[in-house]
């Protein structure tokens, strides 16, 4: 892990601001994150692996918000946590800026993770498979409801029917301004284009708040 490039910080000025970006050589890195969503098997991990170094992340979350008392842990058979093993990607642009890619666990029982993952995110890439378009409805619903900008990336599997981006837009009943890109999750250049497409779209929609917030 390339933490050696971070120099020891002696500053504490960021506690009351948003993430700081005025990093001198001895400061903490700025961090940003993008979510990669879509149905099971659509290629989320493949996409993340094409542009970044993949790392494991264990989350073992309590099933209730209530703190489990010390006495409760005596009954170890009680199921009080649920385990989600997930991967994330890490792109270190420099020692000053790191971008994280989080694949969102698709099943509904993991939705407690989504708020955590999406807070402060740049936006999301919703991956779609033309053979199972409906698999990404849940992700799209979530991002629309939470006003998180997203684009749709259609992973072009071999043998899967090819459609025009506009056909996909209609099938997903997307707003006309949401970009739909065709991509190959295995191809680094293709994935780069998807991420750049998202970043540009977010910059545009955040500077014109009305553009992306219509649900």
């Amino acid at each position: 892990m390339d933490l050696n490039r971070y120099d020891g910080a002696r500053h504490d000025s960021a506690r009351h601001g948003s993430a700081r970006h005025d990093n001198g050589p001895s400061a903490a890195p700025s961090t940003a994150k993008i979510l990669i969503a879509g149905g099971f098997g659509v290629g989320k991990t493949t996409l993340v692996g094409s542009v970044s170094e993949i790392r494991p992340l264990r989350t073992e979350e309590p099933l209730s918000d209530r703190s489990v008392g010390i006495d409760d842990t005596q009954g170890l058979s009680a199921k009080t946590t649920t385990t989600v093993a997930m991967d994330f990607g890490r792109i270190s642009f420099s020692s000053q800026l790191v971008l994280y890619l989080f694949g969102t666990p698709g099943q509904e029982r993991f939705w407690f993770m989504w708020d955590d993952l999406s807070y402060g995110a740049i936006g999301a890439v919703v991956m779609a498979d033309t053979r199972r378009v409906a698999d990404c409805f849940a992700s799209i619903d979530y991002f629309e409801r939470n006003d998180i900008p997203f684009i749709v990336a259609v992973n072009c599997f071999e043998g899967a029917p090819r459609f025009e981006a506009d056909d996909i837009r209609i099938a997903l009943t997307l707003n006309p301004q949401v970009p739909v890109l065709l991509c190959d999750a295995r191809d680094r250049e293709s994935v780069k284009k998807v991420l750049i497409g998202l970043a540009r779209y977010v910059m545009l929609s955040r500077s014109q708040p009305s553009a992306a917030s219509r649900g």
Partner: protein
Amino acid sequence: MIPRDSQGARWFDEEAGPIVRPYAVTKGRTLPDSSASFGLIDVVVATGEGPSGHFRPGPEHRRILSVCRRPTPIVDLTSEIDLPLGVVRVLLGDLTNEGMLRIVSAQRQPVPDQRLLRMVLDGLESL
């Protein structure tokens, strides 16, 4: 209680997963005893201060402090020390309460600002 499978055989080799349940290292606490929130990509650093009062850092606390001698994003810390995120958050709460660790960079707004977006876009384009 020793876990047994349906045939009654003991079942606690490595494949059974950790024998100590994850929240045992937090003494059963599932939420930090701290008002600080620890976002996935917030950056923390050890302050170099020693423990005060009655606090006795456990082995996991010490591992966190060791990794955080340099400013470290929480997601990297969690991956590095291979403990579940919820557990790491409780331990981070202990350490910040004691002044042994602090958050140096945190997301306090749900939406990143244009400057960060521009930096990310430039970074992606130069990949």
